[in-house]
């Protein structure tokens, strides 16, 4: 069997498929507006005529590369290519501003590959044990996880807690627009069919980050205080950096794998959760947000950790862990590879081929990423007067392409203006993104839980996973208040 698997993996078709998939994924992920999910969906029809392992590896390669690719633009031009990379802008762009773009890219590449490999190890060795976790997650648990995610807003609101919370609430409010899934009632749609669907997430994300950053850059064109790109110091990641980020990357990779397993939760949430976790564990939490290695490594290792994590319930239970694997489930069915325990018996060779292929995909990603750092950095070298217009076109085209709907372009533009004004006023943007992702998840599952429990609130406290997450969330939300209170008590004792 091992021989057969190795023959499979190291056939030129599979290797080529992995290489092509990862490269396409990186490119698609890096482009604002194009997500890895969309890439998989669009590449799928091309793979019908391939052998199952060739086609699947192309798509899995795209998945792995796409999640990583988003970080490149997040770091270089403060524009997350995918929602998974939204957290990477927090420390990635500040590091680029200091002239250390190469270092930031190196850290993100190594962290991504580490996170991916860790999730791969967990996929290979403890998949069945972990898979049952996915089945335990129902509405109350998912609500609790989303609530926990929202509580992170208090930790990513860099300077002002009130401003961060206002941003978060604005995001939650925007997420209310559209047809309510629990009652079928249309909220705040003003009779528009387009708004019935709610504002699409990707155009809002592209507007908030990319378009508003473009407008900010227009300012800098005048002031001309842009980065001195000629003196890009430290183009490479040092051994010291590597050792520094390794524990972070390992922890974040494991966290990412677990969040990847949870149905409906993907790289965007896990990146923020890991960022928050590292900040809390750190001895110098105040440095987060200023461009430190851990701040890049945590979200990047974590979002790539979800790749293997999301594959665990997909392959063992036929339950997709995130939006990417939901499309991959379709692909598996197309190849008549019915997921489930019997897949590991009936198609053992194919499954093992995919496992080994997954590691190779991460390795290819690492190699492609590290060897292209110099090329990626060239983006920063493009004069702002030329780069900013190109990014603007990407914003428009990317938002259009996601649903082939021009209304989304208008949404993107409005979000861009709002994002620009907000950042001028010192309001952080990441809480909006977090709220947009988690708002519907929290509200929908809260009310769904009550439907399931016939209106009894005990459902949130009698189920251990749900209760635990709610408890952690409450602590995390009120942490700043608790901390001050503890300090005051201590001071009071001292003065006694």
């Amino acid at each position, binding site marked *: 069997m091992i021989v057969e698997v190795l023959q499979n993996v190291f056939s030129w078709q599979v290797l080529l498929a992995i290489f092509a998939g990862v490269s396409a994924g990186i490119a698609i992920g890096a482009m604002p507006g194009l997500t890895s999910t969309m890439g998989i969906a669009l590449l799928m029809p091309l793979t019908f005529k391939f052998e199952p392992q060739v086609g699947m590896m192309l798509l899995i390669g795209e998945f792995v590369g796409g999640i990583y690719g988003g970080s490149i633009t997040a770091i270089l031009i403060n524009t997350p290519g995918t929602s998974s990379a939204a957290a990477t802008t927090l420390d990635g762009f500040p590091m680029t501003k200091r002239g250390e773009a190469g270092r930031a890219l190196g850290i993100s590449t190594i962290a991504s590959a580490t996170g991916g490999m860790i999730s791969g190890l967990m996929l290979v060795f403890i998949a069945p044990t972990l898979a049952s976790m996915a089945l335990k997650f129902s509405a109350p648990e998912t609500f609790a996880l989303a609530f926990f995610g929202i509580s992170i807003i208090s930790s990513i609101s860099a300077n002002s807690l009130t401003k961060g*919370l206002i941003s978060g*609430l604005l995001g939650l409010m925007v997420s*209310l627009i559209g047809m309510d899934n629990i009652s079928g*009632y249309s*909220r705040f749609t003003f009779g528009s069919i387009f708004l019935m669907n709610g504002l699409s997430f990707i155009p809002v994300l592209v507007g908030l980050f990319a378009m508003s950053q473009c407008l900010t850059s*227009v300012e800098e064109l005048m002031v001309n205080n842009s980065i001195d790109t000629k003196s890009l110091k430290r183009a490479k990641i040092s051994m010291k950096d590597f050792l520094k980020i390794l524990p972070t990357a390992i922890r974040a990779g494991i966290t990412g794998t677990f969040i990847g397993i949870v149905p409906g939760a993907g790289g965007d949430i896990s990146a923020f959760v890991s960022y928050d976790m590292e900040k809390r564990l750190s001895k110098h939490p105040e440095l987060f947000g200023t461009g430190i290695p851990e701040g890049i490594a945590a979200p990047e290792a974590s979002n790539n950790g979800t790749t293997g994590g999301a594959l665990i319930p997909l392959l063992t239970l036929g339950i997709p862990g995130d939006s990417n694997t939901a499309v991959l489930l379709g692909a598996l069915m197309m190849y008549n590879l019915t997921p489930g325990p019997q897949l590991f018996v009936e198609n053992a060779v194919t499954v093992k081929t995919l496992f080994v292929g997954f590691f190779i995909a991460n390795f290819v990603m690492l190699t492609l990423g590290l060897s292209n750092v110099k090329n990626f950095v060239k983006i920063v070298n493009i004069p702002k007067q*030329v780069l900013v217009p190109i990014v603007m076109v990407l914003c428009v085209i990317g938002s259009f392409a996601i649903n082939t709907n021009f209304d989304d372009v208008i949404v993107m533009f409005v979000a861009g203006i709002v994002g620009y004004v907000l950042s001028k006023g010192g309001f952080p943007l990441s809480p909006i993104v977090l709220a947009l992702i988690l708002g519907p998840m929290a*509200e929908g599952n809260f009310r769904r839980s*009550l439907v399931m429990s016939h209106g009894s609130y005990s459902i949130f406290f009698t189920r251990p996973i749900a209760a635990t997450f709610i408890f952690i969330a409450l602590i995390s939300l009120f942490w700043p208040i608790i901390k001050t209170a503890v300090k005051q008590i201590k001071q009071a004792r001292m003065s006694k």
Partner: protein
Amino acid sequence: MIKISRIFSSLMILLGIYVIFTAKQFPAGTNGVLGPGFFPILLGVLLIALSIIQIVHTRHDKVEENEKTDPATIKRILISALIIIAYMVFINILGFLISTPMFLFSIMFYFGVRKKSTLILTSLVTTAVLYFVFLKFLSVSLPTGIFF
């Protein structure tokens, strides 16, 4: 210049009031199950409370560095935004292939690029690359305009 955050917080109070009043008219939930109006009202109340706190706070705050804006910059941002709006209008009339190079050319020119080769090459190559990637490779359609 503490204006922006104060104006914005005041707007948020108005938004909160609007949301609460609209959501009051949503149908109620049945059998103890929360209706569609519960969360909007909860969020509205929180938003108003936080915005008031923010307004009170900014009084004591010192000027935030980001908020410094001179009229020349505002003008520049507005004109850039107008060029983008023009692009969004033209792309629906003339289509992607014609309006994109036009947009790139004009906005780069406005940003002060004067080198002819840069202006022309960037406009054409960007359009061609995007056209190839989206339409040919991913077979996603782009706006074609009303004539084609």
